[in-house]
């Protein structure tokens, strides 16, 4: 969970759109549980969050969200195959050491996955790189020396990654300033939301 605690985040509404009512959801890197709480309230979902950080686990309990304290890098061995309708990885993919493994694990325990990540190809990021600096923005709020983000990618990178591994993309929403857009997603999109299946 990277910089996603507290209030509503722009990708929440897009995630909620993909999640059917009453679904069983696993939220990986669930932070303080805001997303699950939001999905419980708006979509009547059930499910669990997975979180490593002590203070976030506590916050989840306070938010009335069932949380399992665990390190995602160790895989999802607590969870059985196909035990969830959706497995969500919201703005955490870019901080995972083993990106491919977590994607496979999501499709093992869930019938579908939803991944959101900051699009490194967003023009403002590109501009900062052109100026010779690592990008710092609302979706990438860290400096190069303290960022947990070790696997940043662009929309184009992610789609190629999925295509090469036979991961089927069901839907894509690209957001800028919280608003969906359709044209030139890899250049104009700040935040990407992917709904995918096996």
């Amino acid at each position, binding site marked *: 969970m990277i910089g996603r605690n507290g209030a509503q985040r722009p990708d929440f509404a897009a995630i909620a759109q993909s999640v059917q009512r009453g679904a069983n959801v696993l939220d990986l890197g669930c932070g303080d549980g805001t997303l699950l709480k939001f999905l419980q309230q708006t979509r009547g979902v059930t499910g*669990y969050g997975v979180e490593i950080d*002590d203070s976030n*686990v*506590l916050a989840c*309990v306070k938010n009335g969200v*069932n*949380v399992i304290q665990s390190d995602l890098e160790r895989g999802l061995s*607590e969870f*059985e195959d196909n035990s969830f309708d959706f497995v969500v990885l919201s703005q955490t993919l870019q901080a995972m050491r083993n990106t491919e493994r977590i994607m496979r694990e999501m499709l093992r325990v869930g019938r579908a996955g939803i991944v959101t990540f900051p699009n490194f190809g967003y023009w403002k990021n590109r501009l900062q790189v052109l100026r010779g600096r690592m990008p710092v923005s609302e979706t990438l709020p860290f400096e190069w020396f303290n960022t947990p983000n070790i696997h940043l990618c662009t929309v184009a990178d992610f789609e190629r990654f999925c295509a090469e591994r036979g991961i089927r993309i069901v839907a894509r929403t690209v957001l800028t300033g919280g608003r969906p857009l359709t044209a030139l997603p890899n250049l104009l999109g700040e935040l990407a939301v992917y709904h995918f299946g096996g």
Partner: protein
Amino acid sequence: MTPERKLRGFFMAASKTLHSTTSVGTVVPQTARFTDPLPLRSGAMLRDYELVYETYGVLNADSSNAVLVCHALNASHHVAGVYADDPENTGWWDNMIGPGKPLDTNRFFVIGVNNLGGCHGSTGPLSLNPDTGKLWGGDFPVVTVEDWVDAQARLADHLGISRFAAVMGGSLGAMQALAWTIRYPQRLQHSIVIACAPNLSAQNIAFNEVARQAIITDPDFNDGHYQALGTAPKRGLRVARMVGHITYLSDDEMANKFGRQLKNGKLNYTFDTEFQIESYLRHQGNKFADHFDANTYLRITKVLDYFDPALETGGDLTQALQKVAAGVLVISFTTDWRFSPERSREIVHALLDNRVRVTYAEIDAPHGHDAFLLDDPRYHRLVAAYFERVHQELAS
């Protein structure tokens, strides 16, 4: 003092007042007598029996705010507060239970009970066998977690509690909290399972067997009928407790507390206590042997060894936990090598398979198995937050 320091001092004092917690104060144990025979797992039957218990807080009008606290190996019904005639005798979980504490007695009606076979007043080896008119001693039946839970359910009936807001325990107490979810799924809303395991490992059983052999081979044991002879296998019980104590602490904790410190600053080349750890273990052993009954200790180690809810489902814990309806909070401690986090994860896994409302926290504490009795703030904050949730559920 600079104004800044003064201000800081003021805020610290203020925050202390805000978070101030107190003891439940003076408490009085009570006794409930049961005359309905209790069938035990072993096939034996207890014709009638007594349970000694304490309560703190007030049972609300619809009897929905009761929390049962189950004790572990060597504890008792004296969970919180002190006795008027023994103000030093503080309850064993007093840091957890009281007004403003994680289990807040301003909100909940808390019950502590001495289990069957115990030596703190409930029917056990120190009681009279109604069939013979003599002390039970070594003839007292071997009991199990399930037997204890059945007896606790009858105590709940006696107190007019049809459903607990929560049943809570650590270690062997947690096994009871878990057994409640299986045996009486509709009679509790939440279960709080701390430093638990779904069954004991061979290593755990081995430690228990060393403890039992120390007691049984003590020449004063007399097949368990030592009390009638005016003796007690104190040497054996002492060794049993020493073995136990080693397993409750982590290696690091022992290194921090004692290291290779010497008691008198030099080696004497004798078998007297030379290292501090020896002195500590002997002290713990002596203290324990003076106030605990060896027959009870033997039985409680058996209670631990026998606990295995998946036994009836061919080793399938998921199936064993199929009927769980309660919300479950599972907590483990990273340095607990006796009931390791991996064992708690097995429970969590099985609960997840059954789509139980489960929350799992792994507290990074250095104290080993004993951590469940200590007041690590992360641990206590979590339990407090969970009980806040339980409280809100009751209110809604």
